[in-house]
């Protein structure tokens, strides 16, 4: 049970409770304590030993880490005593000599925590020689780049993998100064059951884990354009977070500025993945209605999230028939561009090169899947993360917030409100429900907003009434929660008709390709704007989007029609787990 009392920090009194750590209280009151390995999503590892403070309880003086020390009644804390400062400084100095500085290729760049702290502590040059120059690099998968020479051994990746993804693909090996945190049981992530959610990447303070960069490829593409038609498309959540990398607060919608920026980079057309989301909704809603009628392969699971799909393909072969065969929005949009738009402008699809900007590192893996290269090889040519896109813009000195607005290119640019909310957990579910309820209900005003499936909780449930028939749905974000839900469903405690799963906490807005840091507060701020923008849209159901109607007319098909099946649906593959279960 928690107790409330007051503690003293630097002589001033602050409210505290036994549930809170010293760092929590300091953060709440805007007191600065340096911390490197601390992350609000993870239990404190207390391994970097930088958040040291002087604590005295009952006259006993000791130095403790603020991230892991719980407040006690009568505690007196001093933040910056000379002893604390010198210990912090030396610990950081030793960490810096353990970290091979490859700043040019790093995710963190200008806002590197290590660099900031070094500046703050006044470390000019480390007195210790580097010791990990030749440590391992793993570049075998299409998504993750792991460079252990940059690692500062905080262990956040291990806890991210187990606490958020519920997996054990990252392990520590050896002891002492030889300790290595990296892919379990092998030398590469390719030998693990990694699903590429990238949650470890978001929580790595040293840039040791990163996405596999495609910056050079895209820059080369832009430089040698020749007669190629370059198309850029970006995800629903990209527009709300990319501003963070240019100093804006989270949740600012920069879609129209981003269109300008991409045109300045040299892209001929910029389309909206929100439009692709409308296609996904059309197909998925049709599939759901079919399954509700035939009662076959219930419940239906969403398959927008490539990490979740890989998870099912690896660990739950029995659920593969339950996955919707509808592709993710970006992979619905890409074939629409290459089949429909190419014809419209009279260009062969092979001349069109598509670059997608996604909040995800698993999209890199998805883009190269053979299943995604069947109608066009490939459908998407390059997949960038939000971080990579920002870096490309910065390399060209494009200051995104200062740009003017431009509209998306027509006709694959205007989307409904249903597309806009795809980036938040519950968005796919709500979009599909809007269409399904509108199509099945005989009432005049079918339900439009499904608030039960919104929000940041890991597992959300709702019952949807369709003319007396109850549709049971669940929305899950974070793979660990998904495992929990699947266990409940298997044991029979829970029964659903339709389940949405996103591998990352909060959905794509907490994706592995999002700006760093990504914390619970930042995720909440990113998501807030989604629903405001949705509410402001005139058209809020995918099937009411006139451009979608035009697209289907132009392709001479309907949802689940033969042409739609060949363009917007995919196959799955069973994969065998590579790691032994513990």
């Amino acid at each position, binding site marked *: 049970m928690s107790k409330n009392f007051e503690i003293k920090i630097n002589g001033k009194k602050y409210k505290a409770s036994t549930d809170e750590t010293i760092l929590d209280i300091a953060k709440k009151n805007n007191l600065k304590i340096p911390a490197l390995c601390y992350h609000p999503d993870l239990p*404190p590892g207390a391994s970097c030993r930088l958040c040291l403070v002087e604590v005295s309880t009952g006259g006993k003086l000791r130095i403790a880490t603020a991230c892991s020390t*719980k407040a006690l009644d009568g505690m007196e804390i001093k933040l910056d005593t000379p002893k604390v400062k010198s210990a912090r400084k030396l*610990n950081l100095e*030793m960490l810096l000599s353990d970290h091979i500085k490859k700043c040019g290729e790093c995710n963190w760049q200008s806002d590197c925590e290590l660099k900031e702290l070094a500046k703050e502590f006044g470390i000019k040059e480390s007195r*210790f020689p580097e010791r990990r120059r030749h440590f391992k690099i793993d570049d075998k998968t299409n998504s993750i780049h792991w460079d252990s020479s940059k690692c500062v051994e905080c*262990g956040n990746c291990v806890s991210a993998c187990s606490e958020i993804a519920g997996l054990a693909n990252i392990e*520590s090996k050896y*002891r*002492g100064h030889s*300790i290595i945190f990296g892919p379990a049981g092998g030398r590469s992530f390719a030998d693990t059951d990694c699903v590429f959610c990238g949650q470890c990447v978001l929580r790595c303070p040293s840039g040791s884990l990163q996405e596999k960069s495609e910056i050079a490829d895209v820059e080369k593409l832009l430089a040698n354009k020749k007669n190629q038609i370059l198309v850029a498309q970006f995800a629903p959540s990209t527009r709300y977070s990319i501003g963070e990398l240019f100093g804006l607060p989270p949740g600012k919608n920069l879609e129209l500025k981003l269109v300008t920026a991409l045109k300045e980079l040299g892209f001929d057309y910029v389309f909206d993945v929100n439009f692709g989301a409308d296609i996904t909704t059309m197909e998925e809603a049709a599939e759901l209605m079919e399954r509700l009628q035939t009662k076959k392969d219930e419940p239906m699971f969403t398959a927008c999230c490539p990490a979740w799909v890989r998870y099912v393909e690896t660990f739950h072969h029995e659920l593969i028939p339950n996955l919707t065969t509808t592709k993710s929005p970006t992979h619905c949009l890409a074939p629409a561009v290459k089949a429909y738009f190419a014809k419209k402008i009279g260009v062969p699809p092979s001349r069109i090169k598509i670059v997608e900007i996604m909040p995800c590192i698993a999209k890199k893996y998805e883009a190269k899947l053979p299943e995604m290269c069947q109608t066009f090889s490939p459908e998407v040519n390059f997949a960038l993360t939000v971080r990579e896109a920002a870096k490309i813009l910065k390399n060209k000195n494009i200051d995104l917030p200062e740009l003017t607005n431009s509209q998306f290119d027509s006709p694959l640019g205007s989307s409904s409100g249903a597309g806009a909310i795809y980036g938040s957990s519950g968005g796919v579910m709500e979009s599909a429900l809007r269409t399904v309820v509108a199509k099945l209900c005989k009432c005049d005003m079918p339900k439009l907003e499904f608030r039960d499936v919104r929000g940041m909780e890991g597992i959300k449930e709702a019952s949807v009434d369709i003319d007396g028939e109850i549709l049971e749905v669940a929305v899950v974000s974070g793979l660990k929660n998904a495992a929990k839900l699947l266990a409940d469903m298997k044991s029979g405690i829970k029964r659903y008709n339709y389940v949405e799963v996103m591998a990352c906490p909060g959905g794509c807005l907490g994706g592995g390709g999002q700006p760093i840091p990504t914390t619970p507060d930042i995720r909440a701020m990113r998501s807030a704007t989604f629903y405001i923008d949705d509410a402001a849209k005139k058209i809020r159901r995918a099937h009411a989007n006139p451009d979608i109607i035009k697209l289907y007319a132009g392709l001479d098909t309907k949802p689940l029609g033969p042409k739609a099946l060949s363009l917007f649906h995919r196959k799955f593959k069973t994969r065998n787990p590579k790691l032994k279960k513990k």
Partner: protein
Amino acid sequence: MEIISALKASNLIGLGGAGFPTWQKWQAVKDSPEVKRFVICNLSEGEPGVFKDEYILQNHLPELIAGINLAKETIGAQRTYIFLNDKYKKYLPKIVKETKGKKIEVFIDTGRYLCGEETTLLQTMEGKLRQPRQKPPFPTEAGLYGYPTLINNAETLYRAYLISQGETEIKRFYSLSGDVIDHKRIVEEKVGSKIKEVIPPRYLDKINFVRVSGPSGFFARPEDFEQIASGTGAVEIYGKNRRILEGLINSITFLKDESCGKCTPCREGTYRIAELLNKLIATASLWDRKEILELISTIAKTAEVSSFCPLGSSINRPVASVIENFKQEILGE
């Protein structure tokens, strides 16, 4: 007299090295509201120079088992374990024979120095990463699988049994080894004996210095022999031809290799001190030597205040004792 009060009256402290009052641990587990409790006898003895637990295995096994039983009954433990170092496997048949029908399980592990830290021992037994856990909660509140657990060194349990049998003067085993003496041996003396009381007088003038309590302990010159042979009670003798840096490098190399690697000050600190010590040996200039020694001292002091677990904090003990007492030998001052 009830056993816990007897332990309290006897002032028995943990003889594994940390020296925590034994009765407090017993009382804490006994008073726990949790029904499920465990007792673990720590026989992971992994530090160089310590072999007293082996001595108990050889000579006092029945008393040890009686001590384990006593602890088990006093705190009301469901399950009882002996955490046995792999190198003492040869005593297993003997232990099995002695524990027959007593429901004591033996957990064999390579042990190592790390398992001297209680929470790392728990992690090992649970099959988890061999790194210490955050304290609090202490093992007496949340130990093995989260249940209150009494973890005592083998000798502590042996002594607790003797106390229950009415023994009033508490002695302990001192492990004596090193140069000069013919073979390593156990000396039984009262708790808190001075170094000079542990070493047979005939050796005293052949000693350059000793290391007390293993690599994480301290170094002492003959003139410091008034100090108490504390910690694990190990005394390693270095003869006249041995140099102090040799001893310190031995200590630090051990601590470096045995570090779990979790926290910065211990993982990086031991590595850097070892690196600097080698540099120190290769440096002729006294000016430079002094600078190197100062940096070593700073690193060790930082480890002392900011390490995650007591093993990291103990790095400074050998370093500080050398800097304090052997400056002349190193710097010629």
